[in-house]
């Protein structure tokens, strides 16, 4: 490859930041709390750096998967009465 690579003296990292810095920005990016100049650097870096682009996709996906693994929040069905009775009975017993 002819483009300067990390380690070359004439290498300018995309967006002026390293991949490591870019990864540090991921949480703030996902929450929309990057400062404007950080956001610009982040977006420029992501656009020009395939590994960071792939990593951003992974990061976003992991957050979504964790959310989805929790399942739908059932609209809070009432607990069955027998269960409620058992809980209250257990309390009275433990209090003599």
């Amino acid at each position: 490859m002819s483009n300067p690579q990390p380690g070359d003296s004439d290498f300018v990292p995309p967006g002026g930041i390293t991949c490591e810095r870019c990864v540090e920005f991921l949480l703030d990016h996902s929450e929309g709390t990057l400062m404007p100049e950080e956001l610009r650097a982040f977006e420029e870096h992501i656009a020009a750096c395939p590994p960071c682009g792939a990593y951003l996709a992974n990061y976003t996906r992991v957050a979504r998967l964790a959310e989805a693994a929790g399942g739908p929040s059932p609209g809070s069905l009432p607990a069955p009465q027998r269960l409620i009775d058992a809980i209250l009975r257990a309390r009275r017993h433990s209090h003599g």
Partner: protein
Amino acid sequence: MERSVGSETHEIAGRTPSPEAAAEQPLVHRLKAGEDAAYADLVAAHSGRMLAVAARICPEEAEDVLQEAFISAFKAMPKFDGRSLLGTWLHRITVNAALMRRRSRSRRREVDVEGLMPRFRGGFFEATPEPVPEPVTAGGLLDIEQKKAVWAAIERLPEDYRTVVVLRDMEGLSSSAVAASLGVSDALVRQRLHRARLALTKLLAASEFAGAGAS
């Protein structure tokens, strides 16, 4: 709002309770006094939501989790300080009970999160990271096998990280709510969440999740 007459109100030193917490104070007093009817009210008011939380985290044993959570709460009632709402407090107790139950069932070895952080050379990725597969789903819902794989990965995280992922990403609490619930700083919650997600990208890219659902 009506003034409470004749009933002493314990206010938390140096802190004005929120209107919601203040509204709960009469119930809290009755609970601390051990009134059976107050406990019946408490269980009736909160058991539905707690059961839903338990079912989300530990679907196979949600009812057992609910019972354990209430028993812990009854024991802890003398120490309830009224700084959070009863619902918030019970939510945290339920999440803890559900996680403990999962933990005792799964007996998975916890991973060292440090070993799962992305590797850089001179600050740059050496290679493109392995992708976390996109689940093929209907309407964004995971199937059973996919859920199992995601849970298997989450369960391998050390407890401090696991709890943050569950409270923030699954239960949808804000970072500051998680911080208040765990008694740690907001910054620490965010740091743990970030590192947990980094670790999960590695665990999920390598897991059986890769095959689940996509075929």
